[in-house]
């Protein structure tokens, strides 16, 4: 994988990177995927003219709503198109308007991509709009991408690039809010208890049968990964239902990349966590010190689907 950042501050700078990147790919017969804002898609489409018809595209907000879904979307695009050996992906996530927590999760993913996609032939350029992304986000781009460039060709090494495992460790050192007083709790010895407890709590708190059943699946899979016995807690916060699973036994170092790659033909230990990450808005894992926990968050009962 080639993973590089491009910091741009104008439409001209965006096109100055994107157009050659796309055209070189098309000229070489390589599949090209562009996933960026609708504004940038429009810009690029107008500039490419007829060539735009040969470009795979997705409005970025819908190409993986959450980091684990984004990674899965990349992996699946690679699998569908890997016959040519190299695919080009221009990938600009949504940064503006995101919560601190979301920004952290997406920044973490940018770093994790270096390891998760290491075995693929993906050449990915991630454009960062310095007019909107914010200085912190743009600064971290230089830590999460091994290369940086502005002309859509192979970039130069990023001096600030951080080793992904170290960077992920930094992200995961952020403390999680404490389990609030009044949260419902249950000691779990058998996995069937975790899904009964969490599913029951979800129904009691007004989640639809369907969403409660899926949260129970996520909790079961996360608990299966952690290993019983464990303690489960459930509480509500604004707009969300949170489920905290804490391993009772000795802690172990959990794989910070677990659950980002979709299940393949052979079973892997992180497959169940991948399911949890697909079903939940947030999955946080902590294995520092004496604790070993997974925290799941889904939307609360008053979520409106807008349909």
């Amino acid at each position, binding site marked *: 994988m080639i993973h590089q950042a491009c910091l741009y501050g104008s439409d001209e700078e965006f096109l100055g990177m994107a157009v050659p990147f796309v055209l070189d790919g098309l000229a070489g017969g390589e599949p090209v995927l562009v996933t960026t804002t609708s504004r940038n898609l429009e810009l690029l489409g107008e500039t490419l003219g007829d060539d735009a018809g040969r470009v795979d595209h997705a409005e970025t907000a819908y190409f993986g709503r959450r980091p684990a879904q984004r990674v899965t979307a990349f992996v699946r695009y690679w699998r569908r198109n890997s016959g040519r050996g190299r695919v080009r992906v221009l990938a600009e996530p949504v940064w503006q308007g995101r919560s601190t927590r979301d920004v952290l999760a997406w920044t973490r993913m940018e770093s994790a991509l270096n390891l998760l996609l290491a075995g693929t032939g993906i050449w990915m350029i991630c454009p960062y709009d310095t007019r909107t992304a914010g200085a912190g986000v743009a600064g971290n781009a230089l830590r999460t991408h091994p290369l940086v460039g502005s002309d859509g060709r192979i970039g130069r090494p990023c001096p600030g690039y951080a080793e992904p495992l170290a960077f992920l460790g930094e992200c995961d050192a952020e403390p999680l809010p404490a389990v609030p007083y009044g949260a419902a709790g249950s000691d779990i010895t058998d996995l*069937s208890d975790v899904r009964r407890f969490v599913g029951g709590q979800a129904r009691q708190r007004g989640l639809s049968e369907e969403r409660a059943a*899926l949260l129970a*699946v996520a909790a*079961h899979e996360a608990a299966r990964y952690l290993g019983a016995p464990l303690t489960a807690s459930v509480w509500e916060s604004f707009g969300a239902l949170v489920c905290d699973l804490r391993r009772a036994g000795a802690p172990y170092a959990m794989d910070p990349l677990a659950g980002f790659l979709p*299940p393949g033909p052979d079973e892997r230990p992180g497959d169940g966590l991948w*399911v949890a990450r697909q079903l939940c808005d947030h999955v946080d894992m902590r294995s520092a010190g004496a604790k070993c926990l997974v925290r799941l968050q889904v939307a609360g009962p008053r979520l409106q689907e807008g349909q």
Partner: protein
Amino acid sequence: MSMEPGDHRSVAYSDEAELEPVLAPFVLDGLTGRDKVLYLTDVTHPAVVTGLLRGWGVDTEAHAGRLDVVRLGTSDPDEIVTHVAEAARQAVGEGYRALRFTGEMSWAVREGTQSLTDFETKIQALFDSGVAMGVCQYDRRLFPPAALSELLRMHRAADVTLEFDGALLRIRRVAQPPGIELEGEIDGHGLGELTRALASAVRRERGDVHVDMSRITFIDLSGLRALVDTASALEAGRSLVLSRVPEHVAQLIRLIGWDAVPGLRVYEGDAPGGNR
């Protein structure tokens, strides 16, 4: 199902409510017919059983002398069989057609599987002599699932289509459409049995193998993988057909992308042409 002398059934239960549909008619048919009834308890106090029977509409006082509830206090299979045989002889001697025996089998958890096999063989011999019939009660909370399914197979008039009866999962063989029906929850506990039942259905049937999922309330990723692995190992032209898949399970299968696995067909309703 009404029973005749010689019949030998079993009931596996997780709480007393599950005993009623089997035991209430068993006892009532005997008392309104021409039989005596012997109810042997092991861990339950006889007074509790009497209360249970009253709740099922059995007039225990009117039938005193014809309906015995006894805690034997032994876990020696020979002693139990001797007691039942003696009660049966006495019943016939008193002019009854036969003895209806039912008993808690929890003593066998203490004694081990071999003594249980001895018991079942000897009690069957007694039933075969035509003076008795019986229902053995197995508490699912006490017996390991594998032992339970083996035991249930030993009972002649039990549900012959039942392939596995565990605490969380039941697997039944279905003739039409050919395959199996799953009920309950599938996780690591039932995984081995599911895999075995699928493999035996694949061997048994020639064409597609159907799996009725309508009574599945939970299946985890390992269970779904067992279905997918079975499907993808089928030779070309055969499919594993999942029908009446609960909505959230179908959603999981699509999420993982397993709905596109060759050899697997997934229907939230009836499978087309499935005759169900």
